């Protein structure tokens, strides 16, 4: 009797060692200028994330899901996409989404509960970050199917975390994508924790990437704190999809340095020593800085300028978010439920508006 099991831990592909030295194959399309732009984006994203946490503490921002520690995974993966590709992110993809073209103030408005945060710029085929875990992975399969059906040269990408791989929708999505052989890319940031539950309690397999095997698609495991390796892996997955080679599951092994959200206290479930290693020795920004230094593409003066530039952009975004017009409640509530409001909704809207106009609670109960 032949049986199957899989205990081998596929090593994560690496191009940059934690000390910034090159230990893997360098992607051809990546020159110093592009690498520096990755670095500037990662610095910007980290400053943005820290600023957002401060804004939350000051009561100026609602619930926010920080991504610090995952900048390489996000910038490296989004950098492999074209602006015309379809993007189905989760809520923790803010760094990647901003890189892709989401104005930073929109990311802030999302956490302020402003409905306009759902208005992704019209030139981007990107959805707002999905809150329900894994639902968007299936949407990417549908969008990828549409690309294939229309013979378009576009791919659809889904972004999610390690926790999402336990959901049925993840498995259904990979299976559907494999069976239909659609141009989809599934990018999993394995940041090691789903709120408090470690990845070892999320799955009995040593990796996420190996799950691809069961669906008959390609899996790649990559060091998620190595922006060059992430970029190379995602370029491979995107190119395969674009060429009609079918879907790929990319696992980027990374680490969430902060809490799950501003409502979480990670000290309750983390090992302080492991945490310290990830935050210091394995930090993705440090790694890229060391790499740039070795290539003579980094110095203190440039760093200071980049930080200043990032802070100015962030301050401007905060200013725009905080001076953003308040939502028109009646329009937001009633304007986007159906293409045309039902008679009941039209009457309820009239009642709502009457209540607002009269400044009392009187227009509502009589509504249709």
């Amino acid at each position, binding site marked *: 009797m032949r049986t199957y099991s899989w205990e081998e831990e596929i090593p994560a592909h690496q191009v940059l060692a934690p000390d910034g030295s090159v230990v893997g194959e360098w992607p051809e399309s990546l020159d110093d200028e592009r690498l520096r732009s990755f670095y500037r984006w990662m610095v910007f994203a980290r400053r943005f994330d820290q600023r957002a946490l401060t804004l939350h503490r000051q009561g100026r921002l609602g619930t926010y899901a920080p991504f610090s520690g995952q900048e390489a995974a996000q910038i490296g993966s989004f950098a492999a996409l074209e602006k015309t590709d379809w993007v189905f992110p989760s809520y923790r993809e803010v760094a990647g989404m901003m890189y892709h073209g989401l104005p930073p103030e929109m990311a802030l408005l999302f956490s302020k509960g402003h409905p306009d945060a759902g208005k992704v710029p019209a030139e981007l085929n990107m959805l707002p970050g999905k809150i329900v875990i894994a639902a968007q992975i299936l949407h990417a399969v*549908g969008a990828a199917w549409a690309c294939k059906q229309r013979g378009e040269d576009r791919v659809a990408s889904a972004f999610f975390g390690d926790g999402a791989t336990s959901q*049925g929708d993840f498995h259904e999505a990979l299976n559907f994508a494999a069976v239909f052989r659609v141009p989809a890319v599934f990018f999993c940031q394995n940041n090691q924790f789903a709120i408090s539950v470690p990845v070892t309690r999320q799955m009995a397999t040593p990796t996420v990437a190996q799950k691809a095997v069961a669906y008959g698609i390609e899996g790649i495991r990559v060091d998620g704190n190595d922006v060059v390796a992430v970029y190379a892996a995602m370029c491979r997955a995107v190119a395969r999809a674009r060429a009609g080679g079918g879907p790929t599951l990319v696992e980027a092994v990374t680490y969430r340095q902060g809490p799950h959200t501003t409502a979480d206290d990670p000290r309750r479930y983390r090992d302080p020593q492991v945490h310290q290693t990830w935050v210091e020795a394995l930090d993705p920004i440090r790694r890229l800085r060391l790499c740039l230094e070795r290539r003579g593409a980094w110095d203190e003066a440039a760093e200071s300028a980049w930080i200043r530039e990032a802070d100015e952009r962030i301050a401007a975004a905060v200013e725009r978010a905080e001076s953003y017009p308040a939502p028109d409640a009646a329009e937001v509530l009633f304007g986007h439920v159906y293409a045309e409001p039902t008679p009941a909704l039209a009457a309820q809207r009239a009642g709502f508006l009457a209540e607002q106009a009269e400044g009392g609670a009187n227009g509502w109960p009589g509504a249709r």
Partner: protein
Amino acid sequence: MAQMTMIQAINNALDLELGRDPNVLVFGEDVGKNGGVFRATDGLQAKYGAERVFDTPLAESGIGGLAVGLAIQGFRPVAEIQFFGFVFEVMDQIAGQASRLRYRTNSRFHCPVVFRSPFGGGVKTPEMHADSLEGLFVQTPGVRVVIPSNPYDAKGLLISAIRDNDPVIFLEHMKLYRSMRMEVPEEAYTVPLDQAKVVREGKDLTVIAYGAMVHTALRAAEELANSKGVQAEVIDLRTINPIDIDTIVASIKKTHRAVVVQEAQRQAGAAAEIIAQINEHAIYHLEGPVLRVTPPDTVYPFAQIEDEWIPTPQRVLAGMNKALTV
């Protein structure tokens, strides 16, 4: 005109819309070569190809999510949930995702998906096939819920549903699939998604029903007329989200008494919503309380006892008699 059963009318509607609009896609479990377990999609794959009429793997949430993703790209998916009892598997993709896409993207995207699904009791199915779960979607903003009672309406409503720009839950009562034939035009036509229809006129009592219960109510109304000379007006809602309260109120202003019949178990269903709306809009025209004829609040029964659970013409008649006297 041709004589069609409801399943033929549904097949015909899908055929016409696939032919009219290249963005219409039909998919689900066994809908391709097999033509659907009830043959609703019979012959469509052969005619339109496996790119547009196709089988999916066996996963309802996958079907729902695929439909949402395709809709985001401008397709008009008609996704089949093989039996509506399986809707729990795809609840998030319908009620959490499809219904909210327009809202959460500020109308940048919308979701013109039809979720077609057989349901309904009286045909001795295994468990989780026959349940009337439409009430779950009466409380879901952003979707419409359509339940035809006859072949003509089924075709016109399904064509309207496919052309509508919002998600539509289109429920097909299994007992009606082949139990009746009627004249159905061969060309495409639409029946509005928000209008009830008076299917029997009467001046003494209003009976409100949908799906297979329309026929149960009609039989009860005939019996009432024959036995007592009392004329009940029967309203076929056709769409239960939204509910066409205007047609109901107009009838009650004439009859002053009403009974609501639903095949779903009793509490918090479509009947409860209808009675609440009657209360808001027509209470001063009533001469007695509006009553419900429904099964009890129990799990949908095993096949051997389902006939004891479902409202019968006799039960509806009892309800009508009570409404006339209280």
